[in-house]
């Protein structure tokens, strides 16, 4: 408790978290450009400040002072409200996100469920943006986005559910406290793999940036937006990246608990969880600048034919281990084997060659 009055307490905590997140987003955008630059043997931003560190602040000022344009044919209220509908849910998720055992806004009993539910809401903002823009590219992007986000929500939830089964709780603090000895990534490698892939799709990042594909539909739902509304969409996107990275490090990497334990005090714990979150973020950036974009049919078939069955496998394995009280090692082994099988299946299906049709040269008609 920071203050006795619950309203003041909640306000102070929310303000702290929001300030932290604004700072994190500015750093994230800068870091993303730096990492992508180094991967492409460039330097990234270098001019504004030492190593371009205030580049995102300069970008923010530029975006805020830009003209807020709206197409004449756009549906006015849908178009203007869409950024808020995308922006607010990403902030809502922060309420239930614990950074240490005591540093959170509210410790919800159904925290995990709440975060997943709220982060799914941003689809509505995307659809509103696509519909309200009166632009075919925007509508295409929004429909793609809705299909992708709804599909990948399911393996994401199932992967998290597998963890919740083992920990026996949906409370994030309790899930982290359960991982004092071994983080869940050791016992749930399959769940972790599904979580990473589904998170990438959920965040609409490469290789799953199909809704906003710049080379096909020129930015998708955001095509007609400019200035502050456009920046709100991207703020929301980066907040979501941060939230899901923190969630991943809490649920699979042991949060603030592993390996230092619960008694080292909150400063070290904050450092620890930020390190784990950074590892997740760097993984996302690494994947983003490495992998090419999937086609929409590849994306959907991968979700329904690979991720979803294996998410069920993860849950069934968990159930067997929990019901028959087998040792945890069995769980880790089974899950690891299942992850390898999933990889092998994808490998074989992607390397399957279609037998070519026998062909012969047919002379053109009229030539003897």
């Amino acid at each position: 408790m920071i203050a006795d009055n619950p309203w003041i307490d909640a306000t102070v905590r929310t303000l702290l978290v929001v300030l932290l997140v604004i700072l994190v987003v500015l750093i994230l955008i800068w870091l993303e450009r730096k990492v992508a630059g180094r991967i492409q043997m460039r330097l990234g931003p270098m001019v504004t400040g030492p190593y371009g560190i205030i580049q995102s602040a300069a970008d923010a000022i530029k975006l805020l002072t830009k003209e807020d344009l709206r197409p004449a044919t756009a549906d006015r209220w849908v178009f203007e409200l869409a950024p808020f509908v995308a922006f607010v849910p990403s902030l809502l998720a922060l309420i239930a996100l614990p950074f240490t055992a005591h540093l959170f806004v509210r410790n919800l009993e159904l925290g995990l469920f709440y975060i997943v539910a709220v982060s799914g809401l941003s689809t509505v903002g995307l659809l509103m943006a696509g519909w309200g823009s009166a632009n075919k590219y925007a509508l295409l992007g929004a429909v793609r986005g809705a299909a992708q986000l709804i599909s990948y929500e399911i393996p994401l939830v199932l992967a998290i559910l597998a963890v919740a089964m083992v920990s026996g709780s949906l409370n994030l603090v309790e899930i982290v406290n359960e991982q004092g000895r071994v983080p869940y990534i050791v016992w749930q490698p399959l769940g972790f793999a599904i979580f990473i892939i589904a998170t990438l799709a959920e965040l609409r990042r490469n290789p799953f940036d199909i809704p906003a594909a710049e080379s096909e539909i020129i930015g998708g739902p955001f095509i007609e937006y400019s200035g502050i509304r456009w920046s709100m969409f991207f703020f929301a996107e980066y907040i979501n990246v941060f939230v899901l990275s923190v969630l991943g490090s809490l649920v699979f990497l042991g949060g603030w608990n592993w390996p230092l334990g619960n008694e080292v005090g909150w400063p070290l714990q904050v450092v620890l969880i930020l390190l784990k979150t950074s590892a997740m973020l760097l993984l996302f950036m690494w994947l983003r600048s490495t992998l090419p974009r999937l086609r929409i049919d590849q994306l959907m078939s991968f979700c329904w034919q690979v991720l979803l069955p294996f998410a069920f496998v993860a849950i069934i394995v968990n159930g067997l281990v929990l019901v028959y009280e087998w040792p945890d090692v069995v769980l880790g082994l089974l899950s690891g084997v299942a992850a390898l099988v999933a990889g092998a299946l994808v490998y074989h299906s992607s390397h399957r060659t279609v037998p070519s049709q026998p062909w012969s040269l047919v002379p053109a008609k009229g030539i003897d």
Partner: protein
Amino acid sequence: MLGLFKALGTTLSVIVRKPVTLQYPAVHKELPHRTRGFPVLLWNFEVVEPFCTGCRVCARYCPSECISVTMKDNPLYAEGKSKRRKIVDRFYLDYGRCMRCNICVEVCNFDAIVLNNSWSGHEVSRYDRRDLVNDLDDLLAESKGGGLTNPFREPLGMAHSGWSPKPRGEKAEAE
């Protein structure tokens, strides 16, 4: 699937490599010796006069007609200091029209004009296009300052990339 991990390995190996970017206005790339910048005139340090006699051959051969030259009697010849009877009086070269084709250098009988192979031969942008017309003093400044050392250095056929023309005999044998 394996290619995916291979790709991840590739990007990971690139990230620890040194970036190829040079921060251009602060850092200048080393230019090859045969770089074609804009043409400048050469200064004869022994006689203390320009090599150019004002014979107008460059102006006549220039495809874009960016050179204008006039000639005068050499005052140093009257004093006996120079062997050259005529010398350049006024020389105007419009960098806005020049296309750096090297023809003026090829036709010059006195090796008096050369394409500036230093960065000052490239960074010539001006706010007013009239400032791109250079007079004799502008054109001689680089050479007088010692910026163009040995501009006709051999081997002339060797480019920076290591490319060199094949000896003529080889081609004849192949045919």
